[in-house]
């Protein structure tokens, strides 16, 4: 058994060993810049579930498309993502229906998809990194592709 003094000396060593392991400056700058993406005017639809964080079962369920669900007090968004090469296929539904278009935005680009009368939308996007959806006063949580 080692004493309290040994432990604190060891913590000092560990601190020295890890001192330079911190987020790179560019990442911290980007994190600070996240603030400009504040959606003050919109209602947040929170990420409720993401199939990509579910444990793999015996069957190879991992081969199906990734599905995500978002919800705010008044509405919900269901989304399916199919990845094929650099293009990403998105298919989803907003309920209740009503909004006529959805903006898919990343921190560097955005594009608009049409929503049909039943709330469905689909399209192919060439975006990478974090994206979110925005429609008629609703904005989803960011999620990473």
């Amino acid at each position, binding site marked *: 058994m*080692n004493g309290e003094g040994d432990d604190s000396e060891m913590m000092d*060593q560990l601190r020295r060993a890890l001192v*330079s392991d911190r*987020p790179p400056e560019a990442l911290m700058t*980007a994190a600070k810049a996240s603030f400009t993406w504040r959606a*003050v005017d919109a209602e947040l639809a929170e990420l409720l579930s993401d199939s990509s964080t579910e444990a793999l079962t015996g069957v190879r369920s*991992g081969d199906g498309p990734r599905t995500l669900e978002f919800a705010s007090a008044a509405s919900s968004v269901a989304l399916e993502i199919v990845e094929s090469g650099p293009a990403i296929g998105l298919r989803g539904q907003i309920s209740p229906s009503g909004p006529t278009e959805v903006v898919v935005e990343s921190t560097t680009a955005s594009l608009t998809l049409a929503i049909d009368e039943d709330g469905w939308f689909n399209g192919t996007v060439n975006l990478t990194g974090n994206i979110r959806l925005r429609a008629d006063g609703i904005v989803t949580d960011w999620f990473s592709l």
Partner: protein
Amino acid sequence: MLDPDVQAELITSAVDGDERAWSLLVDSFSGLVWSLLRSHGMYGAEAADIYQTVWLRCVEHLARLRDPSMLAAWLATTTRRECYRITRKRERVGSNADLPEFADPAWKDPAESVVAGEQLAAFRSGIEQLGTSCQELLRLLCIDPPVSYEDVAAALEIPKGSIGPTRQRCLERLRRIIDEGESR
């Protein structure tokens, strides 16, 4: 380490649109997010991806924290969930983890002397071999500027009183790993 009252004020100001308050929160809690993702074996592009997602999401969630003292716990949960997603993704596509920069034999902290460097390298590779929960605790306790015991406890979902005994147990394990490495 932020005083709880200051932290509450910063959160309120950031929610009201004060960008400087947000920057201070990022400065104060980046170490916590970084330590946790490292504890889950995230390096390189994977680490960068998780770190960015957590902070982007945090902007919208700041106003929804039930209590300002919950920020550390929220950041910890969100970081772990993203680490879990990346781990699943690796399993699914059969890819390998990005390796720690210091796993490269050529990597050297320019501030370290040769002798100290060897010792510190043993600590760096030693902590990698600890289980996730020991890594989380020890890395959180090493952050500079430090994170409060309250936040460490909240991030790990353990009572404050068990930080000391757990630290002792984890250091014991680390000591054994380093000793074994030296005798090899």
